[in-house]
């Protein structure tokens, strides 16, 4: 009972969009798919949903090829939001659900419920184009889940949402998970992934660079993160002189350090105490996903600048 992506490859002209991507998503888990623009996230999702056929490799759900499952197994929220601009919100939600075989009356009832939950009931009979982007996105999410799919595939669901709506969407995610749905979503907002995901995969230029449970991935570098606050703050030079330690984020409240694989984080504490400083805070943690990502792929922003113009257009 899981979603298995096995060694998929896809080439568009000269661009090898996917180059042997393999990962699994356990049923009922929230799975984050991380990567810069053009890394291959959308292409992978389109292959999972059967819009595109991979050159090689296979995708199965519960040991059967994805194509054999009825369409209502799948819920898809594309990255580019898609609604009929001049059609009323409730009407198009009912239309989408009816394509999956949901009866119109049932779809109408559920859609009204969901619109109320997302606090957009008053827009039910408005044309979609008259809604704000955030509200359109909420409608889009309802369209994705209205037919109660087993697997939700969402491309950048949080992009462009304000903090209030991000919170609303997160709670809806968790409710979906509690209902036993399997959620796969892509994002480059790594904090969201860290907060929500049971498992993640990081993809870079068509290749998977890390995958597993969120904790496994975070630990995969072997580094550890130390957060330290002492009475001697402001003078950080001594930290740099410690072996296998690197200051990653000097801060007012605390300083974040990276302790190389194999080194003992307790050495930092001992050194601080040895200097005669008072230690207010000492915390050993796994590195954040962002740190892992930066280490494995490079800075997100740089990637976006170099990759976005060329690759995204070439991977329909």
């Amino acid at each position, binding site marked *: 009972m899981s979603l298995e992506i096995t060694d998929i490859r896809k080439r568009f002209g000269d661009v090898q969009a996917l180059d042997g991507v393999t990962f699994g998503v356990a049923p009922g888990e929230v799975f984050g798919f991380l990567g810069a623009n053009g890394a291959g996230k959308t292409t992978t999702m389109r292959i999972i949903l059967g*819009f595109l*056929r991979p050159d090689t490799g296979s995708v199965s759900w519960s040991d059967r090829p994805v194509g054999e499952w009825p369409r*209502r197994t799948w819920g*898809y929220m*594309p990255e580019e939001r898609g609604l*009929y601009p001049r059609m009323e919100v409730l009407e198009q939600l009912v239309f989408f659900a009816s*394509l999956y*075989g949901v009866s119109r009356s049932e779809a109408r009832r559920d859609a009204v419920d969901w619109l109320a939950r997302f606090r957009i009931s008053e827009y039910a009979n408005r044309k979609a184009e008259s809604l704000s982007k955030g509200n359109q996105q909420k409608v889009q999410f309802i*369209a994705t889940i209205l037919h109660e799919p087993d697997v939700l595939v969402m491309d950048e669901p949080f992009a462009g949402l304000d903090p209030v709506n991000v919170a609303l969407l997160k709670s809806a995610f968790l409710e979906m998970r509690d209902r036993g749905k399997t959620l796969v979503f892509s994002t480059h907002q790594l904090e969201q992934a860290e907060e929500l995901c049971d498992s993640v995969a990081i993809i870079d230029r068509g290749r998977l660079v890390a995958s597993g449970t969120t904790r496994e991935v975070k630990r995969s570098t072997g580094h550890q993160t130390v957060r330290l606050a002492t009475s001697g703050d402001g003078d950080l030079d001594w930290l740099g002189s410690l072996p296998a330690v690197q200051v990653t984020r000097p801060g007012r409240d605390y300083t974040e350090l990276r302790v190389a694989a194999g080194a003992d984080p307790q050495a930092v504490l001992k050194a601080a105490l040895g200097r005669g400083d008072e230690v207010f805070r000492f915390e050993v943690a796994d590195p954040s996903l962002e740190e892992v990502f930066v280490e494995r792929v490079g800075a997100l922003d740089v990637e976006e600048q170099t990759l976005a113009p060329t690759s995204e257009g070439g991977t329909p």
Partner: protein
Amino acid sequence: MRDLPNILAVARREFLFRVRTRTFALGTLILVIGVVAIAFVPVIVSYLDSANEEPTIAVWSSETDLTTDPVRTLDALLNAPTETQVPGDPTDRAFRVTTVADLGAARAAADEGDLTAVLAIERAPDDGLAFTLYTNEPAVGRVVQLVRQASTTIAIADRLDRLDVDPADQATLFAPPAYAVAWPDPERTDAPEGPVEEGSSYLLGFGMTILIFMMIILYGNWVAMSVVEEKSSRVMEVILNAARPFQLLAGKVMGVGAVAGLQYLAILGAGAVALLIQGPVSELVLRGGEASIALPEGLTIWLLLEFVVYGVLGFTLYAVLYAAAGSLVSRQEDVSQVVMPMALISTAGYMIAVYAATGLLDIQSGAIIVLSQIPFLSPFLMLSRSAAGEVAPWEIALSIVLLILAIAVALWIAGRIYAAGVLLYGQRPGIRTIWRLTRSGM
């Protein structure tokens, strides 16, 4: 058919959405008003005519002993019955003919326009009759010509009278001779065609061909536009997850086809109703005078049925390809370019059909007979041939079978292009890409 529910759902949305737009309502209204107005043109024209003063011709005669009544002769010639008029029906008269006693007053009335003309008859010195027509009408005009003809008749009758020919014998002298029109081909026995009938059956084939051509061009374009709209609003990916490309394509064609059907029904229905109520209305407006309209001759149930079948099948064949073409571009501006091949082929079919219907091409030639079996052309050509009555039932059956086969093939090809095309953004595919898409499917 597990595809059917989704095809119907897509068609339903397309239909309801289109029909509710203001463009559709307004367009249909304007067309209906136009058709009704055209249908009522004969009534309106007769009404305007009847509103005019009846043209009157006055006769002044110095002779009172003429055996032929000049008034009756003039009346008979000026108001010669046409085919549709009941002879002797006084309401049908175009001219009123009266006698006057005062020539001077009559001439003054004619000059002021109260009378159309005054005909003065006098005895000439050579004992014959002399005629003078006082009128402001042009000397070569119809009235002058008809009065001249009547005058000749009156003069001949007067001469016969003076030769003492019995008035009873005169009737036989003036009786029309036997006169017939026949085919030059001695084998041909059918009744000679009247000019009216020939005109309307040519018009019928012509009109039906135009209607089908308009349906393909206008609504085919609509199909392509609608596909591009779904692509550019990115709603395509959402519905693509729910329904197979084939279902989306078939549903769209069906939905737009239903819109087209509704609009055509509204227009043709309004036209038919207008024609039917024309009798009563004209009676009301013209107080008994009946305008001469009838349903076009040659319009049989069979021809109507053929029109519907060729219209539906022709539209389907083209619309399926229009949808595939629409899926290849992502901007509305590019639509006219990708639909060019279909527009050209349908225009060719339409032109050939019109040339054949109007006689510029020989409708019985072998080339036309062969072309009329080709699916993309048959909706136009078969209708023209049928309207001209030059086609055997098996030819119609064969062309319909070929048309249905062509639709099946087009659906298959278009479905594959569509499946790949709808995810294609920002690039205009060439022939090679289309070929590759057709082969691989995506």
